[in-house]
Each structure stands twice: as structure tokens, then as C-alpha cells.
């Protein structure tokens, strides 16, 4: 590793300052506010919240529904990943699974709820197709469905990635040793994946526990913590101190979950070598899993089908004649186009600046011998733990009286901090795999450290940088929970506007805006994939 240079210290200090002001201080403020009462400091806020029947019920509901979501999601994600990695089903089906599963990630969670309503409601698309109401959508059922759709892509990506590190040669060895199908499956697939499966469970739990978009749209009278927090903060009588208490309590399962995730990581097997082997022929297995996995994907995507149909019909489901009037009215409404431009501005700036912050942090940690660099890992653990709503609320409390209030800057900063962990880990992982002598070589060849980073390190990690940009952009476009407390009439974003339009039952506008987000995200995703592919061909 190169000797410590002044440039490294300057960058480290800037990053340290950024996270002190926009992560540690807001969370500290939140913590202090949770103890603030009319009579000074005390635990009376906590006592009042813990004795509130509604809130206790909301916590119970959140835990119950998040646990159920986590179980269902983990099973479905495992089934899909198993079908992709351990069967010989028709290759295009595998491609459809791998691509289709990512589609919900391109949409705000609040849209999921409206798609469920328009699919399974009394006049819903799927209700019409099946000829009857399949279930009551408002409340538990709708939430469960929304949460499963929301958490399935993330859980699948996690499990699918772990499957790549399972040596499938052991399946053959197990068969040769006379293991039956079940024993072989348990020993060679389930056992090595135990840590990851646990991880997928915890991840799904945390995501559902802290999401605001789905309960905001389809929660009905089934209260969960996120909706309670929203009501306390932005209801008829805002109560900042009690809001802070709920946020702190909301943080607890997330903290516990992240600690559990770190522990579960240790359960994973690490094989020294991976051999590429031909999977054993098994027609029955392939047919069954082909059907099951296709059904899962079709079921998941069918919920969103209405979103692509309703905005192009005169008045779904009553007048089904084709029209572009809803789409055109959005583009003619200067208010909504301005909001779309706001979203684009926030997403681009978040992606550019967020990538810069995460990349610099990763380079300092992975490729320098700076003292104190491990604090960045602690920061990334904290940002991984703090739910978007909690972070947004803490900003509201700290910056309420400041000039940052109601600006795009605060929204962008909140997004950068909220989504920091994943891009940071992507960059750290990629940078630590590169030749450790490049900086020294660059220096011996007359480069400054910054110049070597620009001329050598950056071109060799371009693919990761593009992926980081894409991650930040897409998440900034879809997030609701992170920014719901920070947007104002002047800084309104598409995802938050959808929440507003809900009050006026403007579902066509909601779907057109959702489509706009979807198309924009898809465009960015395809563009980034193209550049990444181009990078790998050039290598």
C-alpha cells in the first residue's frame, strides 16, 4: 500500500465531516429528542408510547407481518435461485426469471399497493379475469402481498449470488456416496446456504418492517409502525418527541437484524475451488421447477400488468377504449412535469455525488494505510442499519430551523447517506481485488496518487462505478420512506407526489407517473448494463 499522502487525509476528513454532520449528529439529535419532555428530560415519552394500545398493536402487527413475509420470501427466493442454478430447465426461462425478478426494483413501493388495488380490488383486472374477489386486499393480505413482491428481488439476488459459490461437484460426490435425493439436497445445497437463507430472512424482515410505501397505499386499517410514525409526525397534531421515540424503537429490530446478518455470514461455507460440472439429468425436477418458477414470476408480474394497461384506457375498468389522454395530460400539466424534472435532478445528483463519496470512501479503506480508515466500515454498518424513515425524520429534527430545510440539497444528502452501504461495499470489494502495487508503481513512474487513481485505478474499476451510479440513481427515483419527511411543495418528487395524488384518487396519474419512473429507471439500467458490457469486452 502507498504511504499516506496529504490528499488522502483531506478526502478522509471531508468524508468524516460529511457523515458526522449528516449521519451521527441527526441520529444523536433524534436520540436526545426522544427523551425530551415538557418537564425536561426523562423517559416519560417512552412510557407513554409503550403504554399506547394503538402503537403496541402496530408493533405487534409489524412483527407478525414482517415475519410472515420473510418466511414466504425466503422460500420463494430459494426456489427461484435453485431453479436457475441447479436445474437444466430451458435457458430462456432462466433468463426470464433473472430479468423479471428485477422489475419491481424499478418502481416505488407505493405503486405496488395501487397495482394490487387495481388488480385484486372489486373491479380489478385479475378479479375480472378470475370472475370473483380472490381476497380482501386492504390490510393484512394486501400488505403481505406487497411486502413479498418488494422483498423477493433482494432476497433472490442474495441467494442467487451465494449459489455461485457452492461447489456443485459435491452433489455428484454425495450421489456417488449413496445419498438419497433428500439427504443429498440437504447436505450439498441447504447446509452450505444456511447462512445466506438466514440472511435472506433477516433482510426481508427488515425491509418490510421499515417500508412506508406499501402500508401507505394498501394498509387500510391494519396499522404498522411506519404508518404510525407518519401519523404522529405529519398528522393533525405533529408530536416530534413521540415521533423520535417511535423512530428509535423502529431502529431496534433493524440493529438486531444487522447484527444477526453479520453472525449468519459466518455460517456460510467457503469452498477453496469451484468446479464447473454438468448437472445430472432429471426430467421430473426440471419440469416441476420450470413450472413453479415460471408461475412465481408470472404471478408477481401480473400484479403490475394493470399499471401498463389502465393509463391507456378511457376509464378502467368501465370504459376500455384506448386513449392517450391520461399520458398527455401529465405531460401538459406543468406541475407534474416539474415534479418529474425534480426527481431526475435529485436522482442524477445523488448518483454522481453518492458514487463519488462511496468510491472515495472505498478507495481510502481498501487501498491506503490511513490510520482510522476502519471508521468508514462502522459508518457503512450504521447506514445499513438506519431505515430511510428514521434518517429522514432525524434530518427533519436537526435541520428544521436551518437554511437546508426544504431544499434539494437535504434530499440529495439524505439519499447519499441512506443508500451508502451497498455502493460502498461494491467498490470496496472490487478495489481490494486489484493489484496492491499499482499505486507504488504509478508513483515510481512519476504519478501523484490522485493521478494514479485517475489513470489506473478508475479505468480498472469503471464497471463497478457504473453499477454504483445505477444503484444510486434507481433507488433515488423510487424511495419514498427516505424523503417523505423532507419534501416540500417546491421540492416535491414523483414518488412523494404519488402519495399526494392518492388523496384525490387520481389513479391514472399515479400509474402514468409510476410508468415514467419505471421507463426512466429501465433506460438507466439498460444504459449502464451496455456500458458495463462494453467495459468487459474491452478487457
Amino acid at each position, binding site marked *: 500500500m502507498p*504511504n499516506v499522502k496529504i490528499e488522502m487525509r483531506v478526502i478522509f476528513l471531508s468524508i468524516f465531516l460529511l457523515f458526522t454532520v449528516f449521519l451521527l449528529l441527526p441520529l444523536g439529535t433524534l436520540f436526545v429528542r426522544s427523551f425530551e419532555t415538557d418537564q425536561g428530560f426523562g423517559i416519560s415519552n417512552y412510557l407513554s408510547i409503550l403504554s399506547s394500545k394503538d402503537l403496541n398493536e402496530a408493533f405487534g402487527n409489524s412483527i407478525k407481518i414482517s415475519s410472515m413475509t420473510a418466511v414466504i420470501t425466503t422460500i420463494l427466493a430459494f426456489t427461484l435461485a435453485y431453479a436457475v442454478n441447479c436445474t437444466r430447465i430451458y435457458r430462456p426461462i432462466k433468463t426470464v426469471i433473472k430479468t423479471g425478478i428485477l422489475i419491481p426494483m424499478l418502481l416505488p413501493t407505493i405503486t405496488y399497493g395501487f397495482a394490487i388495488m387495481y388488480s385484486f380490488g372489486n373491479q380489478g383486472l385479475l378479479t375480472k379475469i378470475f370472475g370473483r374477489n380472490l381476497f380482501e386486499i386492504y390490510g393484512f393480505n394486501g400488505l403481505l402481498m406487497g411486502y413479498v413482491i418488494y422483498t423477493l428481488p433482494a432476497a433472490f439476488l442474495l441467494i442467487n449470488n451465494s449459489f455461485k459459490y457452492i461447489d456443485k461437484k459435491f452433489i455428484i460426490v454425495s450421489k456417488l456416496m449413496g445419498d438419497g435425493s433428500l439427504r443429498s439436497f440437504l447436505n450439498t445445497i441447504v447446509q452450505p446456504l444456511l447462512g445466506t437463507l438466514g440472511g435472506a430472512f433477516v433482510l426481508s424482515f427488515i425491509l418490510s418492517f421499515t417500508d412506508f410505501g406499501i402500508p401507505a397505499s394498501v394498509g387500510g386499517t391494519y396499522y404498522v409502525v411506519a404508518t404510525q410514525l407518519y401519523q404522529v409526525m405529519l398528522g393533525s397534531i405533529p408530536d416530534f418527541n413521540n415521533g423520535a421515540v417511535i423512530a428509535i424503537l423502529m431502529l431496534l429490530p433493524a440493529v438486531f437484524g444487522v447484527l444477526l446478518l453479520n453472525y449468519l455470514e459466518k455460517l456460510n461455507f467457503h469452498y477453496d475451488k469451484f468446479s464447473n460440472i454438468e448437472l445430472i439429468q432429471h426430467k421430473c425436477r426440471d419440469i416441476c421447477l420450470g413450472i413453479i418458477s415460471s408461475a412465481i414470476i408470472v404471478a408477481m408480474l401480473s400484479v403490475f400488468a394493470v399499471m401498463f394497461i389502465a393509463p391507456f384506457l378511457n376509464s378502467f375498468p368501465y370504459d376500455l377504449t384506448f386513449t392517450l389522454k391520461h399520458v398527455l395530460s401529465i405531460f401538459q400539466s406543468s406541475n407534474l412535469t416539474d415534479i418529474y424534472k425534480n426527481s431526475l435532478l435529485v436522482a442524477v445528483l445523488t448518483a454522481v455525488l453518492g458514487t463519488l463519496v462511496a468510491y472515495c470512501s472505498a478507495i481510502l479503506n481498501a487501498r491506503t494505510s490511513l490510520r482510522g480508515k476502519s471508521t468508514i466500515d462502522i459508518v457503512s454498518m450504521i447506514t445499513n442499519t438506519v431505515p430511510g424513515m428514521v434518517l429522514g425524520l432525524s434530518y427533519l429534527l436537526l435541520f428544521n430551523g436551518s437554511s437546508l430545510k426544504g431544499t434539494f440539497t437535504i434530499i440529495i444528502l439524505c439519499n447519499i447517506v441512506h443508500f451508502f452501504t451497498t455502493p460502498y461495499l461494491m467498490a470496496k470489494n472490487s478495489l481490494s481485488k486489484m493489484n496492491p502495487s499499482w499505486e507504488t508503481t504509478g508513483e515510481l513512474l*512519476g504519478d501523484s496518487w490522485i493521478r494514479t487513481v485517475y489513470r489506473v485505478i478508475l479505468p480498472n474499476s469503471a464497471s463497478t462505478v457504473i453499477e454504483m451510479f445505477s444503484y444510486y440513481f434507481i433507488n433515488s427515483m423510487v424511495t419514498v420512506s427516505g424523503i417523505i419527511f423532507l419534501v416540500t411543495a417546491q421540492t416535491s418528487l414523483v414518488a412523494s407526489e404519488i402519495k399526494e395524488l392518492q388523496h384525490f384518487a387520481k389513479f391514472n396519474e399515479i400509474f402514468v407517473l409510476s410508468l415514467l419512473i419505471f421507463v426512466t429507471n429501465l433506460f438507466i439500467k439498460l444504459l449502464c448494463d451496455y456500458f458495463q458490457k462494453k467495459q468487459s469486452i474491452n478487457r
Partner: protein
Amino acid sequence: MLKLQNVSKQFDRKVVLDDINVEIKTGEIVSLLGPSGSGKTTLLNIILGLTQLDHGRIIFNDMDLSNVSMKNRGFNIVFQDYALFPHLSAYENIIYGLRNKKGLVSETELQEYIDFLELKPHLAKKIGELSGGQKQRVALARTLVMKPKILLLDEPLSALDGVIKESIKQRIQSIAREYKLTTIIVTHDPEEALTLSDKILIINQGNISQFGTPQEIINQPNNDFVKEFILKQLQIKRQNIYNLFGEKYA
């Protein structure tokens, strides 16, 4: 001439180098030989300026370089894994440093280096398309065009196989003779050190076990470690060849 005077280094209170005193003449090839963890790479890094020494001095041509930064010492290194930049072609790697030091070598000189290392047919290739020996030569060319005052090589032959190893060995010797370039090589292979160097510095547990010519090491080993580490290994090698092919080849 390069003088190492009372050079010492500790890592986490563990002594890695203890009072090393050596003089290396200009144009000499010197191997730093020792088992893993003996301190030879640390010594190489201290000479390069990558690692700061705790005590002692590094003197080159009567100038104390102990507190001179790596960049300003004017020495250069070829790393064990070559550290070539994979996004650049072989040629772009070779001229990488010349963008920072324009006019350091003329176009004719550059071509001479390329011809000398027989790299002409490979200049347009990406690093991933080169063999181990070709990579080694590109790394050597990239370092040589910077006209280093001392050439440092970290295990230069460890990643190469038999015939290429011999050809690179000869090339290193030719470079040192042709350019009168002091060359310091880290290796753990006694045979490599004996056949490649003018002098060998044997290090064990941070101390010098012996510093001398290959003949002196073979004929007058200073202590049991030298006998065990160097001579025993050579004897085993010789015995293996004898067992396989008989006396003619042993």
C-alpha cells in the same frame, strides 16, 4: 555505491531487520536470499523507500537517502506480480512513466529497449494476452525506460517456468552489464541466487548470515544455517537428478 548502515526495522515490536550493514558496488547484481519471513522483502522495500527504517542509514553515492521519499530516490522496482496495468496495451504500459518525464529517453533509446527485450511483436497486445515471460519483459521495459539508478526485482523468476526462467535470467544479467545498472534481487531459491548474482546476501531472522560471492558461499559457508539452507537444498536437488538420470547429468 549503495551502503546500508546499521539498518533496523520492527513491526509490532517484532524485530524484522537487526543492524544490517552492507556495501553494494555500482553495476553489481546482488541477491537477497533467505527463507520466508527472513526480512529480505522488507530490506528491499527499505532500499526502495516504500518502508521507512527505524534506525540506520541508506547512503547512495555518498548521499544520505534515509529520509528521501521513494519518488525522489530514483530507484525502481519490478514487482513479483509485475503490477502491469491491464486496461493498457504493452506499449502503453512501457511508456506510462514517460508522460510524466518527457524527454527522459529519446525515441531511438525507447526502441532500443523494446528491441533488446524482444517486445516488438507484442506491443499492441493487452496485458491479458501476454504470457508470463512477456509480461515480465514488459514490466522490465517499463522500469528501464525510467532510467533507474538501482533496479530492484522482487522474486523475478518465481512465476516463470523452466526455459523462460533461464532466458529471463540471462536477460537480467545482460541488462546489468549493458547499462552498468546495480541490480538487487529478492529470491528464496539458492540455485537462482548462485547462478544469477555477483554477490549473495543471505538473511535469516533479520540478521545477515553471510554476504559474499557464490564461490565463497559454496566453499566457505559461514555457519550452520548457510550450510543447511543453501547447500543442503542443492545437494537434495543434485541427488534427485542423480537418482533419475544417473551421474552423467548430476
